[in-house]
């Protein structure tokens, strides 16, 4: 009996199926990765050479005992935990400022890039041209703004304006407003137009039927995505610290350069806590608005 079972099992999975087309493609991709790795200087063995493994070990073990004070205290310096709180607040301030510029610009661009609110323009050529014009301009600007990463914009504006928070915020706001506009307009277009149609049928104007028929339905999803972008803005603010903006990233870089890994972990844990708090806040707002809790 057992022999029969084995035969059946073998018959179900003939050797050709083991090397099916999909598997061949996966094996091909893995082969290309192995071959190309060394060409771009990828060398995992470097982790094991010299002092590197020890440094990696030190860094990981420091995660278990984050610093509560400077690892190398300087007389007269403000307490370490005050510095941590200040740098988190600075990062939050940066992210909130960038979002407060990006959200209204994104919302305006989203409004002009969606056709959901358009009135009936069958016999109004001038209005049709105007709406089409603003639609095309908005769509093009959104595509352009999104196509360049905030770090690239950052390098451009910091070169032009020097290291300043203003330059960094402009740099973040350009791609962020484009991304927000794209997602907002997609969310708006995905929602049912039944309420909007009903409002029009009972005499509401174009703007009212759009604003009160579509936006309240879309709001939970819009808020959810906005909170996600705020998280992204926090991470971006951290990264901008590495190019000189005084956010938590700047502190992480200073501590990391001095091999003060316990300090680095304190900053990382506080950053994680801030993002977790934002997530909790976002979830409670979405729940109150009756949106998805994902």
């Amino acid at each position, binding site marked *: 009996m057992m022999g029969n079972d084995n035969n059946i099992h073998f018959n179900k999975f003939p050797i050709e199926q083991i090397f099916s087309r999909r598997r061949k493609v996966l094996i091909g991709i893995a082969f290309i990765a192995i071959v190309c790795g060394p060409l771009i200087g990828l060398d995992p063995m470097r982790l094991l050479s010299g002092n590197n493994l020890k440094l990696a070990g030190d860094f990981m073990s420091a995660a278990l005992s984050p610093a509560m004070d400077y690892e190398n205290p300087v007389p007269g310096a403000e307490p370490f935990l005050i510095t941590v709180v200040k740098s988190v607040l600075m990062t939050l301030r940066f992210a909130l400022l960038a979002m407060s510029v990006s959200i209204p610009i994104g919302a305006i661009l989203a409004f002009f890039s969606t056709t959901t609110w358009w009135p009936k323009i069958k016999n109004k050529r001038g209005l049709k041209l105007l709406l089409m014009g603003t639609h095309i301009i908005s769509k093009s600007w959104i595509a352009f703004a999104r196509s360049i990463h905030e770090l690239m914009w950052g390098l451009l504006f910091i070169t032009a304006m020097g290291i300043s928070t203003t330059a960094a915020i402009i740099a973040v706001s350009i791609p962020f407003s484009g991304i927000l506009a794209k997602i907002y307009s997609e969310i708006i277009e995905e929602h049912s137009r039944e309420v909007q149609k009903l409002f029009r049928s009972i005499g509401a104007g174009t*703007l009212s039927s759009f604003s009160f028929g579509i936006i309240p339905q879309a*709001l939970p999803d819009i808020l959810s995505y906005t909170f996600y972008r705020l998280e992204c803005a926090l991470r971006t603010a951290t990264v901008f610290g590495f190019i000189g903006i005084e956010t938590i990233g700047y502190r992480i870089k200073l501590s990391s350069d001095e091999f003060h890994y316990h300090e680095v972990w304190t900053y990382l844990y506080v950053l994680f806590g801030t993002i977790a708090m934002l997530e909790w806040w976002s979830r409670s707002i979405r729940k109150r608005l009756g949106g998805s809790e994902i």
Partner: protein
Amino acid sequence: MKITHKHPVTFSLESAERYYENTPALNSTTISIEQGERVAIVGPSGSGKTTLLSLFNSTVQASSGKITLLGNELEKTSGKTLKKIRSKIATIPQNLALVDSLRVWQNIITGQIGNRGFFGNLIDLIFPSKNKILKIHSILERLGIDEKLFATTSNLSGGQKQRVALARAIYQNPQAILADEPVSSVDPARAENLVQLLNQISEEENITLVMSLHNLELAQAHFPRLIGLRNGEVQFDSNPEELNESKFKELYTLSEREILDDGE
């Protein structure tokens, strides 16, 4: 022959036709509905019931014919006047068109959306006056769901949502209510209850009620006038007592072709 009416006419179609890409949805139709009348439109799917209701609030334009809404001939009506006319005609669509994320009172307050400007509507939705909330409360009390005033709409049952849609229609303070199969997705008891309630309100407030229905028994039991539609043509227009079984059978017996076409 000139038709005379005892009461002002709410809706009037004279030889009205509506085509969708050369396919007739409503053939030359002449119907007149007086103020305060209660009319059920019956007929199989695809018979033109929704098209007829859409002509009554002018969300669909007739391909030909003369249409008069609340005493205004549509051809001679400006866009501004049309908005005013529409603000006096409430609609209860099949899917109810409620915003689930809003509170019950917020959904109801939008009944007045056609009478207010953008900022007026915004203020109503965010900071409603006490009088408006009291008025909404009294409507909900009448419909038996006043305890749901501040509830989130998504938390209501199907029957409660129907009443919220009805409350929104009443809050609009309309001259007419158009209801497009509003009871198609609830059990018979709830369906009967809502039809009864709509008839009662329409009778008490002298509101014209036009409701499209699949359920013939409900239509016969609650409406003094029935209009039967089939293939975009009026098959009968009379009170239920005058109609015999064969008329209804004729209306709902579909040819094989019609069954395969399956509705609107």
